[in-house]
């Protein structure tokens, strides 16, 4: 069914995704709440993405929620340590499972620090303040000497994929295939200038340009440097994708290529002209390789007001856009569907997560979900998910109202 939707044919029902990628995920606290709601086996939930504290949507929950996509994540987390060797951790009163190398220290004010590669002798690379529910990268910017800036310093986190990583992806893809669901894979390494990754929370001693504001300024003032980083990253990324494909073949439907945000709530982070000069050639190379050598569809995440980039996204070879932030300027759903619906798959746009889902009533949620389904479903090219991850604190009754509305639209009665 996922494949039908991705091919812009209208499936029997809209496919649903929650949990298959790090931008369509569910906060671990919401996963725990959903498991309780559906009466599933109790016990701590695995945190599969420790940066955003996303929880594992296991087979039983996926069935209960009526989901159609499963995800395969890279072995190494955003903080550089591998998943696995699970241990219990008390996350502000909620017992969860975290990777064995997930090592934290409490700050005097109750904030939580996390360490790259689980090495507590290194400077912490992430912090979760009191009142937040996920980690933000700590910027560790060494002094910049313009004469000594070397693009290689911004490439330390990108290298040849390891055999252990390939083994992991192969095992997970095989297991995902047995689920009968569509499969999305996030092998990593091809996100170009994603400011969530620029500070390099996986590295113990990051070098180069690691401050987010400095990076943004560099996209204007140090273009040759950025080109050099993207060029080499692209080369490494394609080599790694080739090795991944050699292991897993066409057993996945979509590959998450890049999560760099180009949009803000009301505008963009750069002009279309800048996008076409600085990002477009490299996206075109990665997506071109994918299309020439695999059956995968290329998935692009970008928050915000990004309609102005859609023609360039399409020309660069992206098949799928996410999260389709309809609340941002110029992102009116019916207009997007009319203009781009035959050329881009909308993997998102299902319901607003800034207002409706966290703060609305179940009725508000139902109404918005049904409206979005009516707009996006015709002709295929739509995978239902909310606009970005389900955030901590989202009422479970609203999540259930959202799911029930999609199932109602699909004509599927669920218990």
């Amino acid at each position, binding site marked *: 069914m996922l494949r039908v939707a991705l091919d812009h044919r209208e499936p029997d029902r809209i496919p649903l995704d929650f949990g298959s990628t790090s931008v369509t995920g569910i906060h671990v606290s919401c996963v725990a709440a959903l498991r309780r709601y559906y009466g599933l086996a109790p016990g701590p939930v695995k945190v599969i993405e420790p940066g955003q504290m996303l929880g594992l949507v296991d087979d039983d929950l996926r069935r209960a929620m009526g989901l159609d996509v499963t995800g395969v994540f890279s072995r190494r987390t955003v903080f550089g340590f591998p998943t696995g060797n699970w241990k219990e951790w008390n996350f502000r009163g909620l017992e969860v499972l975290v990777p064995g190398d997930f090592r934290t220290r409490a700050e005097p004010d109750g904030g939580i620090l996390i360490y790259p590669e689980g090495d507590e002798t290194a400077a912490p690379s992430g912090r979760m*303040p009191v009142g937040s529910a996920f980690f933000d990268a700590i910027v560790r910017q060494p002094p910049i000497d313009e004469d000594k800036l070397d693009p290689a310093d911004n490439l330390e986190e990108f290298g040849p994929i390891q055999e252990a990583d390939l083994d992991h992806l192969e095992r997970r893809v095989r297991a995902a295939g047995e689920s009968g669901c569509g499969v999305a894979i996030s092998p990593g390494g091809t996100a170009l200038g994603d400011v969530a990754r620029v500070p390099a929370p996986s590295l113990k001693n990051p070098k180069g340009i690691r401050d987010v504001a400095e990076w943004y*300024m560099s996209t204007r003032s140090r273009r040759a440097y950025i080109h050099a980083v993207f060029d080499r990253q692209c080369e490494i990324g394609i080599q790694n994708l080739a090795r991944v494909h050699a292991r897993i073949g066409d057993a996945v439907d979509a590959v998450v290529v890049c999560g760099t945000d180009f949009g803000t709530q009301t505008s963009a*982070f750069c002009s279309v002209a800048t996008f076409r000069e600085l990002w477009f050639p490299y996206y075109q190379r990665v997506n071109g390789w994918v299309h020439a050598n695999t059956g995968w569809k290329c998935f692009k995440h970008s928050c915000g007001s990004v309609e102005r980039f859609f023609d360039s996204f399409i020309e660069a070879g992206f098949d799928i856009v996410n999260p389709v932030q309809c609340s941002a300027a110029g992102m009116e759903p019916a207009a997007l569907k009319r203009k781009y619906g035959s050329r881009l798959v909308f993997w998102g746009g299902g319901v607003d997560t800034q207002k409706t889902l966290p703060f609305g009533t179940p009725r508000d949620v139902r109404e918005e979900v049904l409206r979005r389904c009516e707009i996006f479903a015709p002709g295929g090219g739509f995978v239902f998910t909310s606009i970005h991850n389900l955030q901590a604190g989202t009422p479970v009754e609203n999540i259930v109202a959202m799911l029930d509305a999609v199932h109602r639209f699909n004509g599927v009665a669920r218990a």
Partner: protein
Amino acid sequence: MPDLDKLHQAVIEGDWKTAAAATRAAVAAGAEPLDIVTGSLVPAMDEVGRLFECEEYFVPEMLLSARAMKASMEIVRPLLAAAGAEPVGRVVIGTVKGDLHDIGKNLVASMLEGGGFEVIDLGADVSPERFIEAVAARNANLVALSALLTVTMGSMKTVIDAFRAAGLRDKVKIMVGGAPLTQQYADAIGADGYGASAAAAVALARRLVAA
């Protein structure tokens, strides 16, 4: 005759080295520090805001201009203090408790400083108590609260309520901004104003201190 045009242009072009050199040259040529601010920096940052609003400039260009403006202000600020010059207003700014995102807040702070305000920037993850302490200590008349996350925007109401509980609500105007916010939300939590962008925040701040 001091050449303030060069400084003005350097700020618009985001060239901090030229901005600093032009400021030093203007000071050496006898320019009054307040004239440097009102005659060059304020109109330059107003122009940067206009270019941002009409989407000729984006975040990178804004950041570069802000850095150039700051390079100039580093030189001018002590001279202003020595001359006893009064700012347009004193604003305490910060990202609220639980939220570490500060790029938007930093841009607003820079635009306010470039707009002639004295800016007391408390950084990110700021508790209500720190906002109150800073307002009292610096005799500020404006508070600017930033939040990027839906899970932290509720902290803005906590800050406003804390000012009320401390008996200081009538002494300051409170403005709010950030991606998930709206005018409706600002009204609901009792803020005095909402700015949808860094440039809009400056216009709002000027209105609030003039009211």
